């Protein structure tokens, strides 16, 4: 099964680069959907078939792969935004930063005091690289919706790390975590809509009236 894991995780990392380099919002959201759907397979491919891993995979697949992207796509259809026009840092430099972050993640994961059974494999470096990508998106993009995408990628990275200790996380808690994520995106979608109605844009740089 470790080959399957590696393939999934490599695709996940490639999708990170794709979201960093793409200016089309719909494509970004689709990439995150694909990433979420692929990650949802990990509990099964890593831990094998069991009630716990199957339910977790199914839940994560439905929410991360289908429902949340659908919510986001609906949100951007309502606000009629297609492209991330003016990121704070250009797309190519962010892509470059993303590559650097990924390399750093791999180097760093090598030095972590991991348990013997986790030292091989891409799980930890891929998780770190995905989290860093999420942070990059959160920091460099101005559209509120891209920030939500960044938040989702950050959550995806954390989910990958969570696969390492799925025995410690009871199903109730996993369900709670996924549900919270769903509600968070739902609430963010509503706020997004209100921002658009109020400011006629979803650029967060307009949200700057409150300061000292």
């Amino acid at each position, binding site marked *: 099964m470790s080959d399957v894991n590696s393939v999934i995780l490599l695709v996940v990392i490639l999708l990170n680069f794709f979201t960093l380099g793409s200016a089309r919002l719909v494509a970004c959201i689709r990439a995150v959907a694909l990433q979420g759907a692929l990650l949802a397979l990990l509990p099964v491919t890593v831990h094998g078939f069991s009630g716990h891993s199957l339910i977790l995979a199914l839940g994560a697949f439905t929410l991360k792969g289908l429902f949340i992207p659908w919510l986001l796509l609906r949100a951007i259809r309502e606000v009629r935004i297609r492209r991330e026009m003016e990121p704070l840092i250009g797309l190519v430099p962010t892509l470059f930063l993303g590559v650097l972050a990924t390399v750093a993640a791999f180097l760093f994961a090598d030095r972590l005091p991991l348990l013997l059974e986790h030292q091989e494999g891409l799980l930890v470096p891929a998780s770190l690289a995905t989290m860093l990508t999420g942070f990059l998106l959160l920091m460099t993009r101005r559209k509120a919706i891209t920030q939500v995408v960044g938040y989702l990628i950050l959550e995806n990275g954390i989910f990958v790390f969570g696969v390492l200790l799925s*025995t410690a996380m009871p199903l109730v808690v996993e369900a*709670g975590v996924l549900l919270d994520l769903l509600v968070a995106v739902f609430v963010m979608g509503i*706020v997004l809509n209100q921002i658009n109605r109020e400011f006629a844009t979803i650029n967060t740089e307009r949200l700057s009236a409150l300061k000292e």
Partner: protein
Amino acid sequence: MLVALILLPLLPAALSLVLPWYQLRSWLLPATGAAHLGLVLLMAGGAPPTPHSWIGLDALSRLVLLVTSLLFLGCAFYAVDYLAMRRDRGNRVMVPCLLVFLSAMTLAISARHLGLLWVAVETTTLVSAPLIYFNRNRLSIEATWKYLLLCSVGIALAMLGLMFVGYSALGGGAAASLHFDWLLERAPSLSRPWLHAGFVFLLVGFGTKVGLAPLHSWKPDAYGEAPALVGALLSGGLTSVSFLAILRAMQLMSAAGDQLMARQALVGLGLLSLLLAAVFMVRQPDIKRMLAYSSVEHMGILALGVGIGGLATFGALLHLINNALTKGCLFLTAGNIQRAFASKHLSEVRGALSVLPLSGGLFLAGFLAITGAPPFGPFLSEFTILRGLFAADRPFIAAAFLLLLAVIFIGMGATVLAATQGEAGEPPGRFKDRLLLVAPPLVMLLLVLGLGLYLPEPLRQLLEAGAHLLEVRS
């Protein structure tokens, strides 16, 4: 019993969605708050949690639960008259959100599983976002967006932190678990590097929700734009709940014998919070933003007290009660002043004492209380922390603490006096003090005054038991 307490607010929350009567829906809030407080008082005794329990109450959670419940009841009574004035905004969102908020806070306080704690704290973020957006204007949407995004990202980091803690327990042979009492028992055998990393991420994650500097940037916006009673609940209740989560991480570190690192981190963040609050409170022209920075300051004091340990821990826990109740009083009265002047900016708020004698007076008294003037409670708790600082032989930190408190007193005093004294220029609006808008802050202030004069024996025992939990186990 505890399960009933957690689920109690959900029933009226569901009821409020279908009830067609506006006033009755508002009255659900104090009714639930009173029942909640009654149950909390009934559960004063009780067994300590066992290694595999999901929920349970120890001394620390009893303390925070009592404070939160009291504060909610006060805010709930205030809400009845407040919502009666704001019929244009409606209460169909406010009432259920407040009730679910209470339920989520109760769950977070009583959670004995770190995963459950996380879920509950994240739920509090999500249900409080619509509360901050109550006024539905440009400013409140900006505040809501910042609050939602920053706190969600912060909480995501806390998730990573608790996964690191879980990872530190792997490899010991037995299946790892995130049950808090199980972790406490096995703390000495946890893998150190992972536990330390976990602590740092938990501190950053929950620290964002507490609003410790430099993670506080959402706080002035959210508290400034939210309705007063939401500001009171956030600054007194939610911050205390999130601080409890940090205390849990701290307990874990003490049990593992690595208390020193945890303490240094808390002292550092605490002093930084005090410093930043002092900088931004001087010449602050907005009374609600000033209160938000005051909240940053007092969270800093809590972190400092717990970080020093010994007597200061006791002082910090006492300060948690004092801060919550005083902040409640200040926010609620600031809300009344804002309503009377249709502004919270010093350029328009003048002479609040002559326009609203009760609210203005309470606001002024609350200011004296929160800045540590005797005979109010915060004086006692801050003084205890100061004694703790000297007892722990940290004179430089004590000097910095005193200096920053003095700067904050002067800065806050300038704003508060400008708002309350003097002649009201414009003919004020039709707003007058109403019973339910003034009684809750008055009661909170009287409680704080009482705590400054006399500390009841059961409460003292509870505080000591709580402080004991945070000390080194040997």
